[in-house]
Each structure stands twice: as structure tokens, then as C-alpha cells.
């Protein structure tokens, strides 16, 4: 094993309500849904109509510009409805699940014995391709590109994030199968980012990098930047830990099995723990009856508090969501809040007394705690980004649409999650992630 890469910059945000390491298996939900809106920049084209019968692994829609990338049903049943928003934008494709619908059969094989093309074709057909993302930009990988390497981070340092050592207990063989399949897709290596005490060090056919440090040390982008930073024109692929399992199951069982463990966490969850469900499960199936009784508003987040999406109970979980966090909305006025000594206030700055109690866990809400301003403070972002990047200068380059500068300052190396802490800590409440995504969209539009 290589030596430990220690990252100093960053911040661990300690929230109340981390998930207890107990797994409860939920029954198959009555409905599941795929949301094309989970994929930035995608133009979906439907493959099914309402009322169609589908099996798990049947295509529901595909990418208009890359028709080989299909998105398949996570569970069999009947297409209940296709929900559209403004300008007939497809929001959700809802499936009424039925056990008897079964699953499409794929080739059962040891990926080690297959060619790269065969592995790629099987993953594409099964609809698991969208789980492979590419850097730069953090969008779905393009099958015809040749990635330098594939990166998997096996730990998540985001607030309340699930512990993958626990989630993958007993599934290490399937993970290995998934890794073996991925290894066929690149001429380079599969890199595994692990932290100390990781159960993943036994995985073979990979190169392991050990990281130590506060959030965002668990972000795959940060791990890439600190081992072999990405340059212009280079492409690597990344896959989430649990999604490697899907690929593993595809080759082990010959079918699409998007069973996933989701951590339900946050200060407003009465008994935070892990739940086994299916990709695209309704939010209500996971949080129903499990939140504290509150006379204030709650915010349900698909994902973690830094990068997740706001959900309502009638929504469905996103394709990539490994956790659901519930925090108070905090839509209340606070009397002279800026003058509070702040024993109960967590801050990246040292201007609150809470800083004196580093072990304390906090209940943080979704309030902005101030109005939006121009950039005033300097040096704040730099402390939170363990990469060779000047975040403020990069964001300013995005704001003026200067593609050359964006390139020079490292737009290829970061996606929203890597700068999310800056947005959290910003005194001026600048929407860092939104600005960055606009920059990335511009890059995709101009340079492809």
C-alpha cells in the first residue's frame, strides 16, 4: 500500500443525527421513478409510453445525442405516468412495481473473461452506464472516449455521510466483480481512494491511495487532484461505491438489481439509520413516520447537506442519492442574530464561541444567516479546497465567461461538490455551486 496522502485544508461539519449502523430492509415500494433531471445537460428521449409493461433493465429513455446511453427501469412493472413540467420537460417516469414483471436477462459471466467491448456493451444495454461519470465536468461518461483511469472513492467525508465499510458488509465479492468489469473499460488503472481503517484495502486489480484529512478528502475529485491532477484534454471516469455493486451484480446474476442502501440521517430524524431500498424509491417510503414531530418546517434533502437536492415527500429519490438528510428549514427571523455570541452556532470562522467546543454536534438549518453581498473577504475559500486551485479567481473567471482563464485556473478539475464548502462558509453568501455549474455548462457548450 502506498503512503498516506494527508490533506490539511477542508472542514468537517459536525451535525447531529448521524445514522446508526443498523440496516433495515424496506419492502419494495409501490412505485419507483427515474428523473431525467438528475443528469445535468441531458436531453432525454422516451423509449416507452404510459401503461407499457417493463421489466427491470428495460429502457425507459435514452440520451438524444448518444442513443447508446439508455436509462432503464430499476424495477419491473407498469409505466404509471410520465410527469412533465414546463414546456413539456420530462420530470419523472413513474413505474408501478410488480414482482411478477421480473428482469431482463443479461449475460452471466466473469468480466475477467470478457473483452472490454463486451463489458461496455453489457453495461450500456443494462442501463447502468449513467452511473459512470466523467471528469472533467462530472457528467455521464461518453462510451467512445478512452479514460486514462477510473477512480472510485470508498469513503465519504461529507456531513452525516454513509459509512461504506458498513454499507458494503458482505458484498465485497460483488464489489470486486464490479471493479473487474470497470478495469476492462480503461487501458489505465482503477484507483481506489481509501481512508485509514478501510475494509476496501483487500480489493484486488486496483491501485490503492490512502487519504487522511477533513472533508472534502473523500471527494473523488480531490483525490484525483492530489494523486494525478487532470490536464486539458484528459478524461478519467469516476463511479460511486454502491454503483460499482450494480455493475458487479449485473455480471454475477445476469440481471439489473438496483437495490441500494440509503442512510437516513439528520437532526430531524427520530432514529437515524440505514435502509435498504431501490434506486428511485419514493421519498415517503423512506422518511414516512421516521421524522420527529415538529411545529416548524423541515427540509428533506436527497444527498448530503452540501450538495444534495431539496425533496418533498411526494418526490422520488435521485439516481445517485446514497442518503437522505432531514434538517430544520429555519425560515424564521432571528433577533439580532449577527450579534449572538454563538455557543450553539457552528462556523468555519473563529467568530463564534461554538469554536471552543470542537467535539460538539450541531443542529444546523437551511437559513442563509445573512444577505447576499459582493465578494468582500479574501482567503476564506482557499482554506477549504485541498487542491492547487484559486477558487475565487476561478469563480470570477466564470462570472465574466472567460473560457481561457477558466481553463488556466482549473475548471477541468472541479465540480460542484469540490467547492461546496466554500459556498457553506462564504461570508457574502455567494452561490458558488451554481456559478461553477454555469461555467461548466459554458465549457461543454463551447468546447464539447
Amino acid at each position: 500500500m502506498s503512503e498516506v496522502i494527508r490533506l490539511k485544508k477542508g472542514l468537517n461539519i459536525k451535525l447531529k443525527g448521524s445514522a446508526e449502523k443498523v440496516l433495515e430492509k424496506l419492502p419494495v415500494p409501490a412505485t419507483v421513478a427515474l428523473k431525467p433531471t438528475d443528469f445535468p445537460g441531458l436531453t432525454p428521449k422516451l423509449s416507452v409510453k404510459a401503461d407499457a409493461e417493463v421489466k427491470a433493465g428495460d429502457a425507459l429513455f435514452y440520451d438524444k445525442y448518444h442513443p447508446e446511453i439508455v436509462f432503464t427501469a430499476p424495477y419491473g412493472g407498469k409505466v404509471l405516468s410520465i410527469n412533465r413540467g414546463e414546456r413539456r420537460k420530462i420530470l419523472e417516469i413513474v413505474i408501478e412495481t410488480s414482482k411478477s414483471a421480473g428482469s431482463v436477462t443479461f449475460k452471466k459471466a466473469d468480466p475477467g473473461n470478457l473483452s472490454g467491448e463486451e463489458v461496455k456493451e453489457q453495461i450500456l444495454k443494462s442501463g447502468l452506464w449513467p452511473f459512470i461519470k466523467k471528469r472533467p465536468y462530472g457528467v455521464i461518461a461518453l462510451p467512445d472516449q478512452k479514460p486514462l483511469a477510473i477512480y472510485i472513492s470508498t469513503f465519504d467525508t461529507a456531513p452525516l455521510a454513509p459509512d461504506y465499510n458498513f454499507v458494503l458488509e458482505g458484498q465485497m465479492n460483488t464489489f470486486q466483480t464490479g471493479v473487474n468489469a470497470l478495469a476492462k473499460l480503461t487501458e489505465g488503472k482503477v484507483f481506489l481512494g481509501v481512508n485509514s481503517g478501510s475494509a476496501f484495502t483487500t480489493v484486488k486489480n486496483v491501485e490503492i491511495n490512502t487519504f487522511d484529512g477533513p472533508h472534502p478528502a473523500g471527494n473523488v475529485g480531490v483525490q484525483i487532484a492530489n494523486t494525478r491532477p487532470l490536464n486539458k484534454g484528459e478524461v478519467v471516469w469516476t463511479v460511486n461505491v454502491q454503483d460499482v455493486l450494480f455493475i458487479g451484480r449485473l455480471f454475477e446474476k445476469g440481471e439489473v438489481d438496483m437495490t441500494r442502501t440509503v442512510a437516513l440521517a439528520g437532526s430531524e430524524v427520530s432514529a437515524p439509520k440505514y435502509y435498504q431500498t431501490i434506486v428511485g424509491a419514493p421519498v415517503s417510503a423512506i422518511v414516512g413516520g421516521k421524522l420527529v414531530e415538529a411545529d416548524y418546517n423541515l427540509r428533506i434533502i436527497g444527498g448530503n447537506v452540501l450538495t444534495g437536492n431539496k425533496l418533498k415527500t411526494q418526490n422520488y429519490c435521485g439516481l445517485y442519492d446514497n442518503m437522505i438528510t432531514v434538517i430544520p428549514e429555519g425560515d424564521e427571523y432571528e433577533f439580532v442574530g449577527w450579534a449572538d455570541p454563538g455557543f450553539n452556532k457552528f462556523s468555519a470562522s473563529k467568530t463564534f464561541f461554538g469554536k471552543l467546543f470542537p467535539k460538539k454536534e450541531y443542529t444546523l438549518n437551511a437559513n442563509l444567516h445573512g444577505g447576499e453581498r459582493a465578494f468582500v473577504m479574501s482567503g476564506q475559500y482557499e482554506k477549504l479546497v485541498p487542491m492547487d486551485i484559486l477558487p475565487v479567481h476561478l469563480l470570477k473567471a466564470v462570472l465574466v465567461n472567460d473560457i481561457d482563464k477558466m481553463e488556466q485556473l482549473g475548471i477541468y478539475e472541479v465540480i460542484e461538490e469540490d467547492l461546496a464548502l466554500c459556498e457553506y462558509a462564504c461570508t457574502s453568501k455567494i452561490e458558488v455551486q451554481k456559478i461553477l455549474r454555469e461555467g461548466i455548462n459554458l465549457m461543454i457548450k463551447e468546447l464539447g
Partner: protein
Amino acid sequence: MKFIKNFFEKTEPLVQKGGKYHWLQSVHDGFFTFLYTPKSTSKTGTHIHDYIDLKRTMSIVVIALLPAVLMGMYNTGFQHFKAIGELASTGFFEIFLFGLIKVLPIIIVSYVVGLGIEFVFAQLRGHEIQEGFLVSGMLIPLVMPIETPLWMIAVATAFAVVFGKEVFGGTGMNIWNPALVARAFLFFAYPAQMSGIKVWVSLSNADKVVDGFTGATPMADAAAGNITYKAADAFFGLIPGSIGETSTLAILIGAVFLIVTGIGNWKIMVSTIAGGAVMGLILNAFAGSAGLSPESAVYFGIPFWHHLILGGFMFGAIFMTTDPVSAAQTDTGKWIYGFLIGFVAILIRVINPAYPEGMMLSILLMNTFAPLIDHYVVKSHIKRRLKRVIVKEQTA
């Protein structure tokens, strides 16, 4: 306290666009958000946000300034009673009270004029009232001589807010430190009233002064070849000078507070002081050289560390250079920026015959150059990143 919130909530529709008092919208919003942190929650991006905001940041700086304010008030009284020879017979509180009465109106004028203009601009531009002036409004009085007429304070503040800040787009957009713009405005617009020996000590129409009283600052004396101060007095702040700049001790207490809270950048403070010390040492080295006038030889020769406790050096190093908007933004840039400020400040102070103080001009000068410093720091950052590609290609 609920009735205040109810009042603001009830009046909110009146000040909205089309409301009866729509021209009060910024004022309403300003006072409301000052009293109540808004209930707005995150719409995009991170769901949680740090509790820190600009209001808290700025109030931290104001708190850090308080020791200098209090010491400035005391020293105003101290200099007055010393000048009229009644120091021994006057009690501590009487001395302080005299200073309080002299200084408070200046602070009030600065805030009223500055905030008034901010409110008007916020309304005209349709943005929220920004907190930058909370600090500027306190800095402006502290860099003024005690006998500056109130109308001059008002004019200078107005000039600083309008031309130092708002024409650039408000807080966060300005090039120069607004408080120093105010000081520089007076320095150049009213040189006769803003220098010399009449403005530094408040005599308050006293009819007599003690023998030997000149009213000059120690630096003016030193420039003329006379050393009239004791280092201890300069450190504790019992010398004539601008209101807030005299007490190095009080300023350092503020500095500790700024550094502990992380609001003031210690790198700039340290490098500024280092820059001043280096220039002081260089001057010391030339103090004995032939060709210097006797007066210059004296000023060249004062121990280098005296420059740090005299005049506005320390006040500038702690509170003015660290203004995050007008300073360099990059880490490396901050070291260079601070060092040059200190270096140039002492150079101007000692070499320039007409003006025995250099901090203000030096900071304004480096404010101007800060974007250039950053430009080169960012350029070298980009160069380093590009080198990475070449190295990779060779090893690949």
C-alpha cells in the same frame, strides 16, 4: 421584542415597489435585517450556510477598534490638560470626559453622513444596504486630528463614500480604503488646516499654555531635528497625533482580537511591520553618511522600531492594510503587499521633507497596486499549473 418584528412585517408592503413609501425600501430593509436576521433559506447549492455574515464580520472589526477609540479619547484629554499645565490637578475621569466630549461628535458626524449617503445609494441602485461603512465610519474619526472642524469631517466622509466607494459599485468593489480616501481628501483639499501645529492638541479656547508647548507631533519635531518624545509615551499613546493612532498598545489589543477571530489577516500585519522595520534599518545605516542635513541625520538615526510606534504606522498596519477589499487577494500577494506598504511608508515618512508621515500615502499607493500584485501572483500560479502538463508528458 415581538412588536418590533410585527411593525417591520406590517410595514413591508408599504415600502415595496408601488407602495406608498417605496422610497424608504432600503432604509426599511436595512433596519429590519439589522434587528432580525432574515428568514430567507437556501434555494440552490448548499443547504446549510455558515452563521457568519458581513454584519458580524464588520462588528468584529468595530469591537477591535474600541481600545483605540477609548485610548484616543483619554489621550485627547491628556494632551489638553498637559498643554494648559493642569495635568497634575485633573482626575482620570475628567480627562477622559473631556476627550469623550471632543471625540463623540466626530464619530456621530461620520456615521450620520456616511450611512445617510449609503442609504440613498442603496435605494437608487435598488440593492440592500451594505455593511462596509460600519467600519469605515469608525475608522474615519480615528485618522483625523482632534481639531478637524466637523464640517470638514462631513465633507470628507461624503467624498470618501461617494468617490471612494459608491462610484465603483459599493462595498466589495472599491479600489482604495474609503477611510484613507477621506483622510487624503482633507490632506490635499485643506492642507493648511490639516497639518502644522494647531490641529493635534485640543486647547478648547484655553487662554494659557505651558512654556515650551508647541502642539507639534513628535514626528514633525523629529523631522525638524528634535527628539521630543519618550518611547514609552509613544507606545502607550500619550503623544499628540490623530485620534486613534497614538496608542500602539490599544491598537495591538485590537490586533490580537482580529487575529484570534481570523477576521484580520495576520500575514499582512506581519509583513507590513517587517517592511517598516527593514526600511528603518536601512535608514539607520545611512544616518551617519555625509551630505545629510543635521535635521535629516537625526530623523534617519532614530531607532528603527520607533517608527513602528510613532504616527499612524501601527494603526495603518493593523486596521487599514487588512481591509480585505482593497488589499491583495492572494496569499503570496498579501506578503508582498504588506511588506511594500511598510517599506514605502517609512521611506516617505523620512525622506519626504514636506510630510513627516507616510502611512496614508503608502497604503493608498499599494491599494492601487494590489490588483497588479495579484495579477502576477495568479499568472505565476497558472504558469506552475501549465508546467505540470509538460512534466507529465515527459514522464509519460
